[in-house]
């Protein structure tokens, strides 16, 4: 009689110091080590994970697919996609800013410094800056800020000026203002609590930026209202733009076609995959959120 197997899942994910036996790979399955996992506010946590150097090749708008531990003893069966909030090459870390929602993110929220965390990525097509864009406007709300933050970093590295319009329910739950400012962005905050986040008001702000030639392109994520506004205004004023979209994902590699959204390309409606054709898309092609 031979011993019964112990491991439920076979796994050869790359640990921090592993030699990569398939160096051509663009995407890795990594076992990282949690460095910190602290509350950013009452709903969001900020996680720093030390990983194999390969994972640090992630760029703005890309995501990782996370194998979340169980929050309740029962297995979490599917990975959860999460944008890269920040890559810290010096520390060898990737960072996530995430909202605790359902079982996956609640399990993720339980991880402590030193715990292992299996993450696959970087996945998807991120943001791209055209050379002619010197001033961009970034509009984000909620989870969207996590996705947009690395764009501010990318812009700084490319010498592009950023105006960040950060929307939130109230000043207490606003996130990432300091981070955007530290990256040199001019930050405008708008809130539901004082009415400043209303579409009309944001529209006025955007009109002002266009008038000041400070809006060569719009970038948005996390709000259907902001997407509609920037689409409409961008179309009317000839401002191009990009939007990062979400959809439930399975494979993350473009194989399963679970993560599709509808787009209109040259008058024809088509489905594109958030995980591979996106998550960042041409704003004018997006049909709904």
């Amino acid at each position, binding site marked *: 009689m031979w011993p019964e197997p112990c*491991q439920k899942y076979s796994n*050869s994910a790359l640990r921090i110091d592993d030699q990569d036996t398939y160096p051509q790979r663009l995407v890795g399955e990594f076992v990282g080590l949690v460095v910190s996992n602290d509350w950013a506010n009452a709903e969001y946590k900020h996680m720093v994970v030390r990983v194999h150097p390969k994972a640090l090749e992630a760029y703005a708008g890309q995501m990782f697919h996370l194998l979340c531990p169980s929050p309740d003893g029962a297995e979490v069966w599917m990975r959860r996609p999460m944008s890269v909030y920040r890559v810290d090459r010096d520390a060898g870390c990737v960072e996530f800013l995430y909202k605790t929602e359902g079982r996956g993110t609640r399990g993720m929220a339980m991880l402590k410094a030193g715990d292992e965390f299996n993450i696959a990525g970087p996945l998807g097509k991120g943001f791209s800056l055209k050379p002619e864009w010197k001033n961009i406007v970034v509009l984000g709300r909620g989870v969207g800020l996590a996705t947009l933050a690395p764009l501010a970093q990318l812009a700084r590295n490319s010498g592009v000026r950023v105006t960040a319009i950060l929307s939130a329910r109230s000043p207490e739950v606003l996130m990432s203002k300091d981070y955007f400012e530290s990256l040199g962005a001019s930050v405008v905050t708008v809130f539901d609590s004082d009415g400043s986040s209303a579409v009309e008001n944001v529209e006025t702000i955007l009109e002002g930026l266009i008038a000041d030639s400070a809006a060569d392109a719009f970038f948005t994520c996390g709000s259907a209202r902001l997407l509609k506004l920037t689409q409409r205004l961008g179309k009317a004023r000839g401002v191009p733009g990009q939007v990062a979209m979400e959809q439930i994902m399975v494979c993350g*590699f473009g194989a399963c076609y679970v993560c599709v959204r509808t787009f209109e390309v040259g008058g024809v409606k088509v489905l594109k995959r958030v995980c591979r054709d996106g998550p960042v898309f041409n704003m004018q092609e997006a049909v709904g959120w």
Partner: protein
Amino acid sequence: MVDLSVRIGDLTLQNPVTPASGAFSWEYNDVIDLNRLGGLVAKTICREPRLGNPTPRMAETEAGIIQSIGLPGKGIQYFLDHIVPEYAKFKPPLIVSASSEDIDEFALLASELDVPDVDVLEANISCPTRNTTGGNFAMHEEHTRKVVAALRAATKKPLWVKLSPNAGDIVSVALAAEEGGADCLVIANTFLSLKIRTDNFRPALGNKFGGLVSPALKPIVLRMVYQVAKQVKIPIIGIGGVTKAEDVVEYMLAGASAVGIGYAGFRNPTALVSIIDDLERWCDERGIEKVSDLIGAVRDDDMEMDTLAAASIGV
């Protein structure tokens, strides 16, 4: 070192681990070396372009997922022009899964796929989410025999036929496929399922029904492979819930010559390669020289059992 190769009819696979159709594409080469795999299995294609089913296309369940994709694709011409060449860059044989609800169209598709870079035609006659009632050829032995015979006449490629676990009598359907001219049986596709959300009383999937995919189902599919292997002469590929090397062994013991893997590759993108590595180690540790020796090697003829209880059921 163990010889991991297995033969499926005239075709030799370098090892018995293949991806499952719909859960794989050449794009996985981003994360694993596709040249390691036993075969490359393309997502099921249909002749005409299809957008597929409404979203959401996946919902998590108690222990797994239900999914309903609806076979989206850009049609046969795009497939031949753009997708086959992507797969052709790799060594393992290309198995192309194809589907149609109409026998004549299916046969036409089969003949169109009879091109050099395609090594095998896998007939998906069992997609439970293709239409809302979940009906498909593989639910009935007569339909199975007919469609397989038509495909057999239409292509000279090895013809693999993917069966449905929703059929009541899998053995009869399998025999019908064999009679129709199948070279190999792929057992099985997904289980027709439903999830209703208790927060809004609506079906969780845009298409209402979906196929259940879960490691939990392995014992059901394994039983089907075992039953069918006792009756047919052609090889079997077992698909359902393989997540580790021991699961490959279990399917082979039951009578499968190879396995297909879907879910495990979603959970661990590197799973297929590590399962191949583990399988090699598993065999080497036990002095197994040829993995093919495991095929059908279940020891079911000399069951040890509590003699009294055995007597009570006349064993």
